[in-house]
């Protein structure tokens, strides 16, 4: 048994001017799920505590919330380890979504981003499926997206994502991982259109910080699928966005000397006009760090690096 100390976020916009935290202490077995503890608080102490849940078995994705600052499913997070980690259990609603009441958030922005990626197979009417037949896939084809169907849309990744926090227009990890699933599905016939549509303001805002992959309770690994999408987008469309220009520019930059030429990279990404816009900042940094304008010496063994590029970097290479 542990003496679990809870600090639970409370906010009722109809009554409260600002959120506050209520404290509860309960004796319980260390393996008790946080969700079970919250339901005990609701039935034994405060019936007004509001939360969203359903299956209690980490299948429905309803009970995602912040437990000690991490986005988690409350039903599969145990009280004991959280007490050990933090000495108390702070329970808060998920981030990046407005609080409706207590631990319940407005999921509308999350689902809106999901809808935008058209989360269904798109078929080309000119190539209909053969009548009366299934559309079989080989095991190798399924293997390419075996992780993403595990997603239960709990929005833990959306809550953990710093890009969503800073830019509400960013689709977020779950929508992009789902997009990946359709882009590599051999039955879908809109692969290219999907990759073209997601790029402006979408794909390249991902920071590859991997906070989504850490938060995901189902190991969907959204950040790695977003990486795959980026490489595929470059293959389909070339370097047309700031983000793809930066990635391709970086790759070309290193081919030249083996090490980075910083000023040249800014030019490769932003173009001359963009460089002019950043002139003030550039001068500020140059005063303290004049190296930014110097081209570094090429590394020894640059010919080896160039041969590796020659062997592996051709635009029509195998898809990732």
């Amino acid at each position, binding site marked *: 048994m542990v003496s679990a100390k809870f600090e639970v976020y409370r906010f009722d916009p109809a009554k409260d001017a600002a959120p506050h935290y209520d404290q509860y202490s309960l004796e319980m077995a260390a393996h008790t799920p946080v969700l079970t503890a919250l339901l005990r608080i609701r039935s034994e102490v405060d019936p007004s505590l509001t939360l969203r849940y359903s299956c209690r078995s980490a299948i429905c994705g309803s009970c995602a919330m912040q437990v000690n600052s991490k986005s988690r499913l409350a039903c599969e997070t145990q009280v004991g380890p959280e007490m050990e980690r933090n000495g108390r259990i702070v329970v808060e609603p998920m981030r990046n979504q407005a609080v409706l009441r207590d631990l319940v958030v407005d999921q509308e922005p999350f689902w809106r981003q999901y809808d935008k990626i058209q989360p269904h197979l798109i078929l080309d009417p000119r190539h209909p499926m053969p009548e009366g037949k299934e559309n079989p896939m080989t095991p190798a084809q399924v293997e390419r997206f075996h992780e993403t169907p595990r997603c239960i849309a709990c929005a833990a990744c959306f809550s953990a994502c710093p890009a969503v926090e800073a830019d509400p227009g960013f689709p977020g990890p779950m929508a992009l991982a789902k997009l990946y699933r359709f882009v590599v599905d051999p039955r879908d016939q809109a692969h290219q259109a999907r990759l073209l549509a997601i790029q402006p303001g979408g794909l390249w805002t991902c920071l*590859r*910080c991997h906070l989504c992959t*850490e938060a995901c309770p189902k190991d969907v690994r959204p950040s790695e699928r977003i990486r795959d999408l980026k490489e595929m987008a470059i293959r389909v469309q070339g370097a047309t966005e*700031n983000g793809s220009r930066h990635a391709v520019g*970086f790759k070309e930059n290193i081919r030249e000397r083996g090490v*980075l030429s910083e000023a040249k990279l800014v030019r490769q990404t932003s173009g001359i006009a963009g460089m002019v816009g950043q002139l003030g900042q550039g001068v500020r940094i140059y005063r303290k760090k004049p190296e*930014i304008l110097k081209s*570094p010496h090429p590394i020894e063994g640059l010919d080896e690096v160039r041969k590796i590029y020659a062997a592996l970097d051709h635009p029509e290479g195998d898809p990732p």
Partner: protein
Amino acid sequence: MKMAYYPGCVAQESGKELDMATRWVCRNLGIELVEFPNFSCCGSGFIDEANEVLNVALNARNLAIAERAGLDLLTICSTCQGMLSLANLRYTDPKVKARVDGALKPIGIEYRGTTKVKHLLQVLVQDVGLPAIKAKVRRPLQGLKVGAFYGCHLLRPADELNWESAEEPHSFEDLLAALGATPVYYRGRVMCCGFPIQFVKPETASRIAGHQIDDAKAHGADAMATPCPLCHISLDAYQNQAAKAVGHSLDMPVFHLPQVVGLALGASPEELGLPRHLVPTEAALGKIGTRAPA
């Protein structure tokens, strides 16, 4: 202790003060740095986005260079640490290995997959050890509240890095405490600095940096410290942009990891390259009774 020194691009260029401080600290802690002028860039995550296999192959070449010399690799950048660790992991996939070997073998490079990649933070905490560092402290950072800022790729993905808890790391804070400073715990310490999109979506990047600096400040930090020169660019060189993005001044001095160690071990601000910072470090140095850099 002898290690293959992998400084990374930025520490040899605009972040030269990180290289200066690393050399000072390693000299004073008995870590011999063996240099390899044939190391290439780790790809910084960008080459991985453009061409995954190419990125693994370039880093397998770097790892093979250290392997041939029989040395573990020392990184001083969270992103270098992440990319080289990633290459080690992806190289265990037979399909990736076949393509990488296909590019390396014809140029006479063989990688057996044995090179360990360690960041300076890990070496200081796990190999040198906190008691040994504590014994060399000549200028305890007493009264200085420091918010450690880890940098994503030193911690995540957890199964790739696997040397410290990705969710609740404590190495950096333990080290700061051993140096006499007061570590500040805040949510942003394991968050992203925004750097990867600094040139892609500058305003979004700066807002992200601003959020983390604000968070450190709200928890009482006098200064921040980072083991990653890319985070340092976002948090220090672009702090004025971050302040603009969040709409108020930030005034947060940001140290590189070996700079805080060097300060405690008695190095002068000049030896550690502190005058090269964009945000002045005077206020923080004043708290530990050190004169401001010239």
